[in-house]
């Protein structure tokens, strides 16, 4: 365990920010304020944060349709994200990307991705660039259990092994791809073992346990930085909301989410652990909660007030060479 108290507070801040961000979007979406398709990350915070606490701006992550958490964990500007999700001109992508395409290349955030299985090959490419340009960076591909059935994911794993690239495949197994359960859709019983069969170490961890995620991630990142090649981590986790906002979740038993929220909430677990071990005080954590609440409030307020992109934006930035 190498986390300082500051680190722990930072980890908590990121997780709490994700939770508050998503809870608030859930409300705003229900109120009809947010356009488009939105997939919330609430419940999975420890996965993104436990991994990204091991990374810096030099490292690159590829994300999914459920990307807000990865963005926040990797340090994207929360206000810029909120503005983006509202489709505003000063959003992180000028309003052109929206929830499914938030990216911030300066932060090493290579984009949420609307295509299931879209990012693993891209992450391999980022790792290739890191190797060739000797940046010392690593790449992390976040994917879901559903995405783990997509051919692109396997191809990416194999190519990473062949070229021995510094890339980590994180499979966030939240039990469902849309409404289809993982036990139905994944032919084998163990996604991590399947990844391992591609020739790299594969482990699984309880994705609601920040410390377990952090440790497994640390090992994988160290391995990658040391030039020992790729590895995979299956993080078993749950999502607290539906697949997308508006999903009635008929594929879930009535009490499933309740139970999971009770027993499997990474924030609760983190809080209990750090306070019981006297690593952090409840007051400190409460203060973070308040700061985060204000941040999100402000972000939503300014997002609502901000202007939409003007017509001149429509044909801009398709190409670098003729802007």
């Amino acid at each position, binding site marked *: 365990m190498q986390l300082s108290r500051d680190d722990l507070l930072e980890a908590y801040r990121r997780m709490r920010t994700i939770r508050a961000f998503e809870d608030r979007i859930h409300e705003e979406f229900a109120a009809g304020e947010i*356009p*488009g*398709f939105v997939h919330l990350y609430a419940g999975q915070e420890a996965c993104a944060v436990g991994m990204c606490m091991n990374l810096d701006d030099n490292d690159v992550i590829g994300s999914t349709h459920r990307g807000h958490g990865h963005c926040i964990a990797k340090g994207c500007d929360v206000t810029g994200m909120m503005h983006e999700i509202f*489709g*505003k*001109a000063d*959003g992180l*992508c000028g*309003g*052109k*990307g*929206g*929830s*499914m*395409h938030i990216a911030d290349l300066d932060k090493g955030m290579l984009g949420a*991705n*609307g*295509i*299931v*299985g*879209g990012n693993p090959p891209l992450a391999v490419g980022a790792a290739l660039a890191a190797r060739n340009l000797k940046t010392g960076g690593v790449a992390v591909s976040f994917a879901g259990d*559903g*995405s783990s*059935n*997509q*051919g*692109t994911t396997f191809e990416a794993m194999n190519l990473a092994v062949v070229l021995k690239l510094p890339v980590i495949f994180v499979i966030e197994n939240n039990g*469902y*791809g*849309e*409404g*289809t*359960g*993982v*036990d*139905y*859709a*994944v*032919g084998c019983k163990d996604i991590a073992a399947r990844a391992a069969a591609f020739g790299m170490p594969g482990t699984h961890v309880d994705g609601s346990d920040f410390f377990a995620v952090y440790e497994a991630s640390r090992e994988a990142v160290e391995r990658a930085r040391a030039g020992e090649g790729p590895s995979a981590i299956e993080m078993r986790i749950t999502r607290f909301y539906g697949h997308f906002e508006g999903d009635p*979740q*008929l*594929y*879930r*038993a*009535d009490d*499933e989410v309740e139970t999971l929220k009770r027993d499997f909430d990474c924030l609760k677990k983190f809080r209990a652990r750090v306070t019981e071990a006297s690593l952090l005080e409840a007051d400190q954590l409460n203060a973070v909660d308040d700061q985060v609440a204000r941040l999100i409030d402000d972000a939503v307020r300014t997002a609502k007030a901000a202007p*939409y*992109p*003007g*017509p001149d*934006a*429509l*044909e801009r930035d*398709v190409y670098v060479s003729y802007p």
Partner: protein
Amino acid sequence: MAKKTYRQAISEALFHEMRRDERVIVMGEDVAGGQGGTGQIDAYGGVLGVTKGLIGEFGPERVIDTPITESAIMGAAAGAATQGLRPVAELMFVDFLGVCFDQIYNQAAKFRYMFGGKAVTPLVIRTMIGGGLRAAAQHSQTLYSIFTHIPGLKVVVPSNAYDAKGLLIQAIRDDDPVIFCEHKLLYDTEADVPDEAYTIPFGEAEFTREGDDVTIVAFSRMVHLANQVADKLAKDGIEVEVVDPRTTSPLDEDSIIESVENTGRLVIVDEAPPRCSMAGDIAGLVAREAFGALKAPIEAVTCPHTPVPFSPALEDLYIPSAEKIEAAVRKVMEYKP
């Protein structure tokens, strides 16, 4: 006749054909949507509810939820089709063709020709097209021009509930691979739809408005905008004829040519970027076959050459609008050689 939505019409077509022919199966991601979960098995019935109820009546051997694995879905459907099944495979959003296109255009589409006329591949791929849901660059494309480019595929773009039912039944009974493109914004639109099964032949355009001044050829949702413009301009004395080809492949070239030979003016409305698309395709046809009748340049109202933007403010500018169509019609009307 009862008013039914486009969604209901498509659902009815599936129920009809699955009852009629045991070989018809439905497969795709979340076509039922609860397999392996802790709740209901027919939880989604397709992400927009179009296949709801099928698994209850026909069971999981004929209504097959799959993993997220489009290449395997399309390939398995194509392979099964060569062996006597009549699969209706769902490609949830047409935008996902990029992860499975090989199985469609190099395999299913080419079997019959490559194998010297021996294969029969009665495959239907249902897919959602179009913008307007603020679904951004990877969930809002139309892309039917890509399928239209490929010999061996048939491509259907129904603009209303009545056509959707008849064309889907035709597609399922058809012995060739058919791409059936459903526009997301049309699911809740209504039309009179008979309860019984009926087919609409491919390659027969529908004239949704008749007129002698200008021909508009429009596809899918764009037909509605074209009709609106026609109605509006009729008040100004401009008689617009609206042609809805209903299938882009085969294309009812005769109807288009006939109309332009009468009107002498053509506007094409295509919700797609302008390059190598249906806009050019129709223009090329007319500039070759009805050149002598043309009184004005051929105008096209398309999306710009950009990905689909997310922001509502931009997406509204991106998709062809009634205003732009009207302007194009007026432009060809006002053209002086």
